[in-house]
């Protein structure tokens, strides 16, 4: 599993970082960043899915 953020859609709600703080963070403006390069470890995948399901802008993209 890999995750990315559509920066055009993200408006900095930070709900991804609340759901999965190990996977998502914040840039200087409060917009979402991805903290993990490459594959998301097995143990964090459920959290990453939860982050996707909590983004009001539907800006989290998960590819498997």
């Amino acid at each position, binding site marked *: 599993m890999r995750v990315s953020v559509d920066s055009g859609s993200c*408006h*900095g*709600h*930070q*709900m991804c*970082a*609340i*759901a999965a703080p190990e996977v998502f963070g*914040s*840039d*200087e*403006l*409060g917009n979402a960043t991805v903290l993990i390069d490459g594959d998301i470890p097995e143990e964090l995948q459920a959290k990453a899915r*939860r982050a996707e*399901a*909590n*983004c*009001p*802008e*539907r800006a989290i993209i998960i590819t498997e």
Partner: protein
Amino acid sequence: MTDTRKPVEDILTDYDIFDPEFVKDPYSAFSEIRESGCPIAHTERYAGSWLPTRYDDVVAIAQEYETFTSQSILVLPPIPGQNEGQYGGVKAPPISSDPPEHHWHRRLILPVFAPQAVAKYEQGTKDLCNSLIDEFIDKGTADVAGDYAQHIPVRVIATLLGVPLEMESDFTAWVRAALENITDVEGRKWARQNIIQFFLAQVEDRKNNPRENDFISELMNTEVEGKKVPLDYVLGVCNLMLVAGVDTTWSAIGSCMWHMAQHPEHRKALRDNPELWPTAIEELLRVYAPVTMARVLSKDAEFQGCPMKAGDRVLMAFPAANRDPRQFENPDEVILDREHNRHVAFGSGIHRCAGSNLARLEVRVALQTFLARIPEFELVNPDDVTWAGGQVHGPRRCMVKF
């Protein structure tokens, strides 16, 4: 008190957001409208407005910022003549801005409110909450709205702005006149004049006595394309911070306290499982979202079959969107570990509440500090709780005993 308002004939064509029943419990009205054949209601009251109640409609309108502009964002029309005179240009950027200016209006303040930037207010907020609790803990009773929630955001914002905390009661009075009692136009004028004059004096003082690490000074010295930002922008941002940063979060904290007073099982769950806090806060924000904003149409547009005209006002009922059963299972129920929660308590799209991370921090710290010191408490009398409504929904008197 005699209420002389005209009774509501049909909520779909004549809703009244200032009706005492609506103020106390807007959710039944939202639900009635949402589940009718006409989920976007209309009223002629208060110069007319539309009221979308479904999640998808509210979000779609928030995303369409070219049609649904932010040239006027309150649930009532602007004060007559507000845009005239020397300080007529003072608005509340970036919430009152549209693209393209919106971009730099917002860009300049976002770094102040990023999660890593607001973390520095956590300890001060906790100390403040503890000092408020010290005042009433021995009495066995407290007004958690008036003695607790009300004092937290105003002092946090005053600290952030670097303005005198001793003026707290003035700030609170101005904000209430600007956002709560907004059917009183004279009161709104009074509030606006006071806020502008106050921040003008703060700006003048900083010109004569430069300060380090000071939000207003930094704002004054910011340059955009080689030029210092205009005074109207500085005053406008300060206006926004005060007006949008106080009543809103105070209402959210108050509603959460009201909830906790009635739900010992939720107090226990949070005590036993502190890892629930982050999702619990989002869930409480969903259910008790305090803010309704407005948009104004830039052109005629048919939206979901509604013939909207240029200049029409649309009320962005985020609290209604957050309880749409199409989006949230059991929407009226607080589920502390709710798995799917795309709530829009802080709006959606380019006007997402700039202060959301600070608001979250304040709500969490206010609840955690209170629950740690007063684990068991209940409402003195559920019928005695009073509410503010319209633009901002939250309790104004909420007596608890412990």
